[in-house]
């Protein structure tokens, strides 16, 4: 190769001839684009509303590729997002996040509350035309509880002591004791086809990359590392969606996604708060084509105390810190206003969220009074409160996450105002968990929990859940809360359950073992060619009715043309 190269520089005259070919090719490669530009999106007016029509392709972008489409073994969010369009569960959450039937038409709970009977809708079919029966449900339950299945989610299903299929449309499960969160677990378990999986090893089966489901869509093509495309499933158990084809492109970089959105190559992407509130509003040519949506996110950020340590074992100190932190300032400064304060670990607007509760207001005077009551005062005049000669000082740990770092800095300043000295330490996630959370070597942390769909928070708040790898790592122990959490697990009636968790939230807020800081919005940009989106979003988010979204044929994207 080197020799050839040397010869070509020895005889420069040859190069002119060789150069012609690349130039021809280049012109071909660049020229076609002028063609595209002619009917580029800039000229189309997307403001008209059209009646719902079938057809069209919706292209979205996701940052990661699923490892497979069997949610129980895949685990990552990319997998559940796509598998959720392909597979059904027995139950689902409706737009207000209340439980509704999906494959199940109805379900009854026995008088002793230990047995749940699901009645499947009649004549259900898999995408390959085989009947979907209670046998498939039983098979799926056996899979998820099988010891050879590599899933971290088996525990809830192992509580079922007996599962039966009295007939093809009935699935009956019995628990050793009433277990209210059970219903939620049946809304997140994708039912898998027995006829295709019965002789397969679920951990390695090719089915994970070539699935057959029962929901609106079925997998059409999976191009590794590039995209997955789904087309409508004519046998869908839930009726027909409007949009014919869903394509998910894998674009790991958010900035590249944004460029693709600007160039009209994708229709949907999730935005960060800067893109949402600064970049897009400043670009009128993009605003013509792109609509912005916000929905309540799925998690909240909190400041958690190590309740086993001084001074956090004193409720007055915790409340004082809660009063001293300005949550609105954090929402404005860190989330650019795109979030809201919460007063319970449940999504505002859903039945579990107690409407009577409101977050601790910003009140530094009350904070100071509470600290004084707890025995803290500035005896040596250094601006930091102290008690028994020890200054009121602690360290906030958090992981490498820009928003959490900024949150910690804002709190540091507010706490200094009332005389508390705060240091901040940023850690890598795995060592954060391994070296600090598990051995309980921390004063306070900034972390997030999800805003659960099911109200059960036993794992996080019950006093029995304080083992090294368990989730009550703050060490919360309140017999009243323990009793409520136990009662909540036994109560299957939604209204009675609601009262229990409203009471639980109230005590938790008073006790202030954590300071609720903010719940950020999920922010989305969607091309205006997509219509039928509910705005403002209900508690379940804008995605709750994607099957009702449609793309009028007038707005369909141009097909790619030959060069």
């Amino acid at each position, binding site marked *: 190769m080197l020799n050839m190269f040397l010869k070509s520089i020895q005889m420069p005259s040859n190069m002119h001839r060789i150069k012609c070919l690349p130039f021809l090719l280049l012109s071909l490669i660049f020229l076609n*684009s002028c063609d595209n530009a002619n009917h580029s999106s800039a000229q189309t007016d997307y403001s008209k509303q059209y009646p719902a029509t079938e057809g069209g392709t919706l292209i979205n972008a996701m940052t990661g590729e699923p490892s497979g489409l069997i949610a129980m073994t895949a685990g990552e969010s990319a997998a559940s997002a796509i598998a959720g369009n392909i597979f059904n569960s027995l139950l689902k959450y409706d737009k207000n996040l209340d439980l509704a039937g999906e494959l199940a038409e109805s379900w009854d709970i026995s008088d002793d509350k230990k047995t749940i009977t699901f009645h499947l809708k009649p004549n259900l079919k898999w995408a390959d035309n085989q009947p979907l029966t209670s046998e498939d449900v039983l098979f799926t339950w056996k899979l998820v509880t099988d010891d050879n299945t590599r899933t971290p*989610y088996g525990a809830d299903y192992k509580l079922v002591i007996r599962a039966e299929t009295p007939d093809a449309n009935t699935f009956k499960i019995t628990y050793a004791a009433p277990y209210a969160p059970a219903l939620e677990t049946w809304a997140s378990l994708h039912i898998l086809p027995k006829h295709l999986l019965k002789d397969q090893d679920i951990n390695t089966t090719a089915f994970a990359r070539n699935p057959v489901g029962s929901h609106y869509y079925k997998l059409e093509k999976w191009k590794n590392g590039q995209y997955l495309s789904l087309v409508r499933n004519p046998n869908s158990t839930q009726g027909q969606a409007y949009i014919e084809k869903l394509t998910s492109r894998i674009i790991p970089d958010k900035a590249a996604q944004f*460029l693709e959105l600007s160039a009209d190559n994708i229709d949907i992407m999730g935005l960060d708060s800067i893109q949402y509130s600064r970049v897009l509003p400043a670009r009128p040519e993009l605003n013509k084509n792109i609509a912005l949506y916000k929905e309540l996110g799925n998690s909240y950020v909190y400041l958690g105390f190590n309740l086993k340590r001084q001074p956090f074992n004193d409720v007055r100190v915790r409340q004082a810190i809660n009063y001293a932190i300005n949550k609105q300032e954090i929402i404005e400064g860190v989330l650019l206003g795109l979030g809201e304060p919460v007063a319970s670990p449940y999504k505002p607007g859903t039945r579990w969220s107690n409407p009577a509760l409101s977050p601790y207001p910003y009140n530094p005077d009350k904070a100071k009074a509470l600290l004084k009551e707890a025995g803290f005062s500035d005896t040596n005049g250094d601006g930091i409160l102290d008690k028994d000669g020890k200054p009121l000082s602690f360290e906030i740990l958090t992981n490498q996450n820009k928003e959490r770092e900024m949150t910690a800095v804002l709190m540091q300043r507010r706490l200094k105002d009332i005389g508390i000295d705060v240091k901040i330490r940023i850690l890598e996630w795995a060592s954060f968990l391994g070296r600090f959370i598990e051995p309980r070597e921390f004063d306070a942390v900034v972390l997030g929990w999800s805003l659960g769909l099911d109200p059960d928070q036993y794992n996080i708040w019950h006093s029995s859940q304080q083992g090294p790898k368990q989730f009550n790592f703050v060490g919360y122990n309140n017999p009243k809360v323990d009793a409520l959490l136990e009662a909540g697990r036994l109560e299957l009636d939604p209204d009675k359950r609601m009262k229990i968790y409203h009471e639980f939230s109230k005590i938790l807020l008073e006790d202030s073992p954590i300071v609720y800081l903010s719940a950020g919005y999920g922010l989305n940009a969607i091309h205006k060619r997509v219509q039928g989106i509910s705005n403002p979003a209900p508690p379940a988010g804008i995605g709750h009715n994607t099957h009702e979204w449609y793309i009028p044929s007038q707005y369909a994207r141009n097909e790619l043309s030959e060069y």
Partner: protein
Amino acid sequence: MLKYIIKRFLWMIPMLIGISLISFFIMQLAPGDITTTEANFNPKASEESRQKLRAMYNLDKPIIVQYGLWLKRMATLDFGNSFASHQRPVFWQSKDKDGNVTLGMIQEALPITLLINVLSLALIIMIALPLGVISALKQNQFADRAITVFVFIGFAIPGFWLSLMLMYWTGVQHQWLPISGLQSMGSEHLSWFSQTIDFIRHLILPVFISAITGLAGISLFTRNGMLEVLHQDYITTARSKGLSENRVVYGHALRNALLPLITLLGLSIPGLIGGSVIAESIFAINGMGKLFYDAVLMRDFPVIMGILTIGAFLTLIGNLLADVAYAWADPRVRRGVMQ
């Protein structure tokens, strides 16, 4: 010579074992494993399930036992299966009992990374060599200074920033080139020819970006080599023979100046299989860089070890090739090897 090569090959075995042993231990130093990265800190994932997974992956055994198990598999060239990616084979495809073929992860990521790196290396050589020669001939003149500034700007400029700017300029503002990915949506319905053009269009930016950052090394290397050679006696002799300046520069000086480049190319062989995580993320290319990065984040040990082993193997091969090529090109070195 053959004996020398065989000897070097045999030496590679203990080297590889040593490298893999060290890699294995360093990998284990990072806190966490697949069971803490998957469904991490999720109250729905129970500790018992985690322990069960740990046992299934042999992660509960002492590190040295784990290494022994890995080495035993490697002895039969079995790279194992990924923890995080639905048990996909790490290196090469496998077939299940129903005849479904699952492609290996490295098998899939390697060709595109290799293609981009080879193209960009070729581009680098094509541009950097002439630039280096011109720099040397016009030493300390305007052209030399301009070239040096240009290649250093290319070297110093953050690749991700340049990528995004070019993507915006050529993709959004002018729609000359596609922005990311390797093919356009729906291109599979086009003719073979259009698909090829489409593919080439997608490669232009990634290759260009990766080339521009690599210009500085080779062009400065060539410049300095040329400067040294141009002052040698045999160049004066060639000039005094009355040879044309072109013959002197390209026929005599450049050939000698390029000898050390062989070493440089040999050393860049392992680099050919390593992709840039940042470039691959921005351009949405499913290459080796991202594969390795994701595997490290997920603590997907078989994938990490697979890539490291192949990288180590190629590095050793690259060294060997460079030495052999050098001996072939330079009689003085050849004599040294023979003795």
